[in-house]
């Protein structure tokens, strides 16, 4: 029994999430000590609401990275699908609920994801190259063919969705209030569905398997091409949903507002212990990593650090966070090679 416990502890210590969680906790406490405002209800709600869009993007990016690829096109993809569906709804003067915006945008997102997926899955091209290319294609269609410009008004359904709140948190000291958007439910729902899919469906396991060894996955009988295509369709759908939420929450549409988010999202995923080489990582870790980035981005002011220093801190966090996990891998290998050599010592 003691052995079992030791084994369990050993396995936990090798996991990334406990360390990450401690770092997260330390950061929160630091901000709390400096400002006394971190654990205030309105601040927590603000952070949760800031997590929605990067969190949704991170779920998609996570899936791709686990499968052994990397996707940088999701912000452009989301921008294009949300812009196309919003302008269409405006043009028909749509007055109904937000569901049609989601439906249209997700449909367009699925088609755009299929575009990525066909090049990556069927033609077996490198994911980074394909998505770098499609980033430009998507942006080009939006700015050229659709002649995109800033839309100050959005359909009423989206506007209402963006302002509707689950509850309102009030800071007892400052009196500031923050709304918890209904969109948080969308994020939570996608997160739960993805967790279940990755853990309890053969499709989810095939993503991990392909990330571990594509050749082995093929030999085992997984349909690698189909799995890859579906991954990118799913990423397109999730990213487009995030796009609709983003526009609804901002109450207006900046076509280029989401572009450039990909690096921070990927950083959060990797910070969460997802192996950039594929095959390893958990959604929990991915969410903690993303949350870390979101908190650093949002709480610098509470720490009394000028916002102009924000990206320096974000960058440092990424280097330290990913560096630590890289060191961990190296030291694990060292321990291994040492244990091989042990018999010599005993013999000598």
């Amino acid at each position, binding site marked *: 029994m003691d052995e079992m416990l030791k084994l369990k502890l050993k396995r936990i210590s090798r996991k990334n999430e406990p360390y990450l969680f401690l770092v997260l906790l330390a950061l929160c406490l630091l901000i709390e000590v400096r400002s006394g405002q971190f654990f205030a209800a309105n601040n927590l709600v603000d952070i949760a609401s800031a997590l929605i869009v990067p969190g949704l993007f991170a779920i998609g990016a996570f899936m791709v990275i686990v499968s052994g690829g990397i996707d940088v096109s999701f912000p452009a993809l989301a921008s294009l699908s949300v812009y196309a569906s919003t302008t269409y709804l405006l043009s028909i003067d749509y007055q109904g609920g937000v569901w049609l915006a989601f439906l249209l945008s997700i449909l367009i997102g699925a088609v755009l994801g299929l575009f990525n997926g066909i090049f990556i899955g069927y033609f077996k091209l490198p994911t980074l190259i394909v998505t770098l290319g499609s980033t430009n294609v998507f942006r080009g269609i939006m700015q050229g063919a659709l002649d995109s410009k800033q839309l100050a008004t959005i359909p009423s359904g989206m506007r209402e969705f963006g302002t509707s709140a689950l509850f309102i948190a009030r800071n007892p000291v400052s009196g500031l209030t923050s709304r918890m958007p209904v969109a948080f439910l969308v994020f939570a729902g996608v997160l739960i569905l993805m967790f279940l899919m990755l853990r309890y469906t053969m*499709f989810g396991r095939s993503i991990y*398997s392909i990330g571990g*060894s594509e050749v*082995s996955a093929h030999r*085992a*009988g*997984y349909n690698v091409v189909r799995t890859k295509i579906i991954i990118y369709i799913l990423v397109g759908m999730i990213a487009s949903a995030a796009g609709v939420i983003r526009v609804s929450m901002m109450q207006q549409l900046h076509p280029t507002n989401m572009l450039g988010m990909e690096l921070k999202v990927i950083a959060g995923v990797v910070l969460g212990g997802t192996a950039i080489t594929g095959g390893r990582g958990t959604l929990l870790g991915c969410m903690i990593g993303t949350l870390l980035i979101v908190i650093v981005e949002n709480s610098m002011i509470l720490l009394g650090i000028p916002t102009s220093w924000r990206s320096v801190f974000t960058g440092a966090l990424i280097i330290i966070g990913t560096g630590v996990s890289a060191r961990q891998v190296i030291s694990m290998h060292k321990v291994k090679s040492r244990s091989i*050599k042990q018999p010599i010592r005993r013999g000598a």
Partner: protein
Amino acid sequence: MADSLLKVVDVYKSFVGVKALQDVTFSIQPGEIHCLAGENGSGKSTLIKIISGVYTPDAGSIEINGRQYNKLTPIEAINNGIQVIYQDFSIFPNLTVMENLAVNSELSEHRKLVNWKRMRTIAEDAVSKIDFDVDLDELVGSLSVAQKQMVAISRALIFNTKLIIMDEPTTALTKREVSNLFKIILKLKERGISILFVSHKLNEMYEISENFTILRNGKVVATGSTKELDAEKFSFHMTGRKFTKRHYRVERLSSEPMFEAKQAGVQNGFEDVTFSLHKGEILGVTGLLDSGRTELALSLFGMRPIDSGQFYMYGKPVTLSSPKAAIHNKIGFVPEDRLSEGLFLPQSIADNVVISEIDRLTKKAGLVDKEKRAEEIEKWVRELAIATPDPNNLCQTLSGGNQQRVVLAKWLACNLEMLVLNGPTVGVDIGSKHDIHGILQDLAKSGLGVIIISDDLPEVLENCSRVLVMKAGRIVADLETDKTDESVILSYMM
């Protein structure tokens, strides 16, 4: 032979005009251990892929349990109980042992959802079949090579398996692990499972298989009982050439040693290693995988600098603190894994040959002297008979034996005093092996100090004049090769 489990009849297969298999016929009985041998490119892998349904033969047929197939699909092969264990084991290093074991059967049953409890039951069943003791929740990536192989074997047994094809299963195993593998193979045989054992090592064929088939250039050149095979016949069938063994004889031994090690040691590697190397002799170093032989090899080239004792060259102390220092002292090194450590595979043969002497070929302005470079390349390609139409071809286009010649050429171009070779002919086919041995012997005769570190005992006995046996980090014997034999060396090693 009506009761054959598997019969391959008159199979032909060609790829874009190249005949990979011609008129291949062979059969396996239930419970038979059959060895399939052949040099690289002889058609072994093509044959395996035809048996497992990956390739369709152009002509001929496959009979399984009396049923004839002209076109066998991978699924049909699996349903007929044929399982292949590839050299890379087809595992997922990022997943647990349990998932690795269970995934194939879950997929073949077309399951859509994962039931972790059922997967555990499948995995437990699988490992119990060969009494494989392993933590099912461990990641496969952190297991040893032998354990990974056991995972692959256990997984193959989940199906109603009748034939297991093992593609060079002993390549990365230690002697102890090999004998363990053989025990398991015999256990499988007892249960009526046939094994097709792909190998090019004669001693393994003797030890484990009853019958053999040797392929050469896509044709079956010999088949029969392993008992009737001897080393001479084996290498003739494998290569189509006859070799006469050249035992190395020392002709002119320098009176003073050219290289000495005194009480040399590296932490967790070896200790108290003392020996001397004279000009004109070839010194062998042998031992089991964990004996410290590899560490000694690395130390001699400055890759694991010694932390006690001293090396001497021509009586003067030398410090080999880095490969650069070793090269400066005119010591060359042929590593164990030439592909990852010895060569730039995606670069040209020519660049690989001149890389270590690039400083000498550089003109004052820092530019490479093109004429001198071309001369050097021409010379070494000719001298070592590297088989290439054009030295500007990429190194990866060469066969294993020719790649090893490029590694040799690279060092010889540097006018060495001493050359250390770690497993010089691992993965090299018999013909090239013979040629490389010839080159080394000629070099030693012309005055190069040669140290061969190898666990291939026939190689050591044939080529070295003296052999040091290492065990647990120490030298336990210093033997003259013409006064000893394999069994004596083995008794010191174990």
